[in-house]
């Protein structure tokens, strides 16, 4: 069930916590231990705002095991406003309404469950930005 593994990743999964290089300011999601820009190992936690635009997307109908119950689902790459790309599911939208370049925002959803008696893994997905104010 990978209990410790998913527990370990919750800051990233729930709140898009990545890292920022204390030396050169480069921002990373997922977090890195070594800066790709200046090789510094002095990186600090950095929470991303969770908004960006869709870089690419596709639909999965032949799923890897553990994801069967969700098909068909949309997966995508999101270019966060702070720079990094992140891969995640795109939710709350019909495939026909998804477009490259679309503005999206992070939501927290169920990523998968380990059967009916196992742990439920929650984490980030993205959806077209809601403007319901």
């Amino acid at each position, binding site marked *: 069930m990978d209990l410790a593994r998913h527990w370990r990743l919750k800051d990233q999964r729930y709140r898009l916590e990545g890292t920022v290089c204390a030396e050169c300011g480069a921002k990373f999601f997922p977090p890195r231990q070594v800066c*790709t820009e200046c090789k510094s190992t002095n990186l600090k936690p950095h929470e991303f705002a969770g908004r960006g635009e869709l870089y690419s997307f596709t639909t*999965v109908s032949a799923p*890897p095991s*553990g994801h069967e119950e969700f098909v068909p689902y949309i997966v995508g*790459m999101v270019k966060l406003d702070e720079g990094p*790309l992140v891969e995640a599911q795109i939710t709350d939208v019909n495939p026909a309404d998804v477009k490259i370049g679309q503005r999206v925002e992070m939501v927290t959803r169920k990523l998968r469950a380990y059967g009916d008696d196992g742990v439920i893994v929650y984490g980030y997905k993205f959806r077209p930005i809601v403007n319901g104010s």
Partner: protein
Amino acid sequence: MQSVSVVGIGQTKVKEHWDRSLRELAVQAILGAMQDARVDHADALYVGNMLSGELTAQENLGALIADAVGLRGIEALKVEAACGSGGAALRAGYLAIASGEYDVVIVAGAEKLTESSNCYATASLAMAADADYEAIHGISFVALNALLMRRYMHEYDLVPEDFAAFSINAHANAAHNPYAMFPAPITLAQYQRARPVSEPISVMDSAPMGDGAAALVLMPTERLNGNRNRAVKIAASAVATDALALHARRDPLWFGAVELSAKKAYAQAGVTPQEIDLFEVHDAFSIMSVMSLEAAGLAERGRGAYLAREGEIGIQGRVPISTMGGLKARGHPVGATGVYQAVEVVQQLRGEAGKNQVPNAHIGMAQSLGGVAANAVTHIFVN
């Protein structure tokens, strides 16, 4: 470093081998290669394989297969670099000879993908990507390539039909390869009608999963003796890596590892990309062919798909690729594929490729990719 040559090749047909185990397939290919090389011993065996543990509950393939093939006692181990495992095993075998450590080395690639359910195999193949940041999101290996293809089409204003010629070429070539999984030509209409897997990728853009094994016997070029006639020299062997996850790459539409390993290989062999007579490209998906051709310097950036459309990739073309069917139509037993590619280049350079023979083939390149080109293993062969 001493020069290394391939002196023997062997392969099984790629298909769903319900009746044969991983070890039986490996033994068949290795015995074929040893017979072809006319050797009855070897100093070491390197087995390229990705998923034996996950799909057949069997690791430690080195000892298992060395013993099964009658070579109990020799150095033997498994080499894993996802779908590039076969190429990586060849790299290991190459180094073992080039370093002067051994005189006869066997390189095998073996994979059995059809032992488990499809969803399970799909999940296993996704292990080639980043488990914590790609696979957990249900992003299958096909989906990763679909993400690239969609963006590529967006950037360069292409439609799926622009990729059709890769599949058509692969199937046309496979028709004359008795070892191919799908030895039948396809038409553009069949391509257009194909069932989508992860849009824009359809089944006709995807290499089929299959079981199979291939093998090579390597020796120092200086000690070929009676094998000299049919020997093919390995003029370059180079490996490079990129970020494993697509999101971590500076430019997801550029195969950095392909460029690095190809450049190293060209330098080692002292050739230019234009001098390559044939290229066994890692065409697991059409988009991989396109991006590999560009990064390897065989097409300009954004023009990889045009190469196929203009007929340059056929047997008689300027850059023949997938000459025995490629991953697309010969089949893709993932960890074995890199060795199949090497076997096919040797067939071409020996002049034994039959109806698929590339005329005046002297320099052939094989490139085995692990993950979505996170790992690129390039070998250049000359006769």
